[in-house]
């Protein structure tokens, strides 16, 4: 690991977030739509072979933002088709992302039950 590698991670992650900020500031897209756009864009770019080079270059900078979620979904589906055939198209995406999705649902549910929303001041 060297400084150049860290700089690449920072730059790629920062630029993806910057694109999100520009969408928030300059378009009338709702946050939900922006999140959906990021995930689907990540999946489509992965299918086209355009996201993998970004992951190789920027590592966590490309996988931690939401397009990385789309990347894992698309990659999982395509890899599973290769090994399991047609059923892989149905199982691959969620299998690859199962840890994250399940963690978000389980921790999210428990935490939302424990804590109360802060009164808006």
């Amino acid at each position: 690991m060297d400084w150049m590698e860290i700089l690449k991670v920072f730059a790629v992650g920062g630029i993806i977030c910057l694109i999100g900020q520009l969408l928030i500031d300059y378009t009338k897209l709702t946050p939900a739509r922006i999140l959906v756009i990021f995930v689907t864009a990540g999946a489509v770019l992965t299918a086209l072979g355009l996201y993998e080079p970004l992951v190789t270059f920027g590592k966590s900078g490309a996988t931690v933002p939401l397009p990385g979620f789309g990347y894992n979904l698309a990659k999982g589906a395509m890899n599973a088709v290769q090994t399991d055939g047609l059923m892989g198209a149905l199982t691959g995406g969620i299998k690859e992302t199962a840890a994250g999705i399940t963690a978000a649902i389980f921790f999210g549910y428990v935490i939302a039950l424990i804590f109360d929303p802060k009164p808006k001041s």
Partner: protein
Amino acid sequence: MKKSKNEKDAKKRYEKYVSGFTPSSRSVSNGIKAFAVGGALCTAAFLIQVFIQQSFGLENKEAGRIVTVGLIFTAQLLTGLGLYAPLAKFAGAGVIVPITGFANSMVATAMEFKSEGPVLGVGSKLFQLAGPVIVCGISVSVIIGLVYYVMGMFGLTLPWI
């Protein structure tokens, strides 16, 4: 007392004048904050992943998965404690676009509907924002898988898979 027409016009003109430069300068600082915080968050995730990989001798993928779960838990705990909203107010997309924003949206919407009960309130509103993301993401992945399967039937392969 009624405001004179002139006064109103002046007020309008001033607002127009102000709006001419205020949003753009705010957008520049928003952009810088999103870039810096988003980049820092990804860098922190990367460093933790490398540390886990080296200390436990794990594979790249496995370590990445642990970090993802850790980020999700941390973001949701901060949301529960009421600390995520101020963070998002400062960093904007810098903490919304990373997976932490997705995790935050689940707890934030679910907590608001506690009064409707643990099943229909919290249980369903967990997916108010996350639902569309999961539905669209998984649907696209199935379509991609199907297209890839059909391509394979015709002997077409993609060099990047």
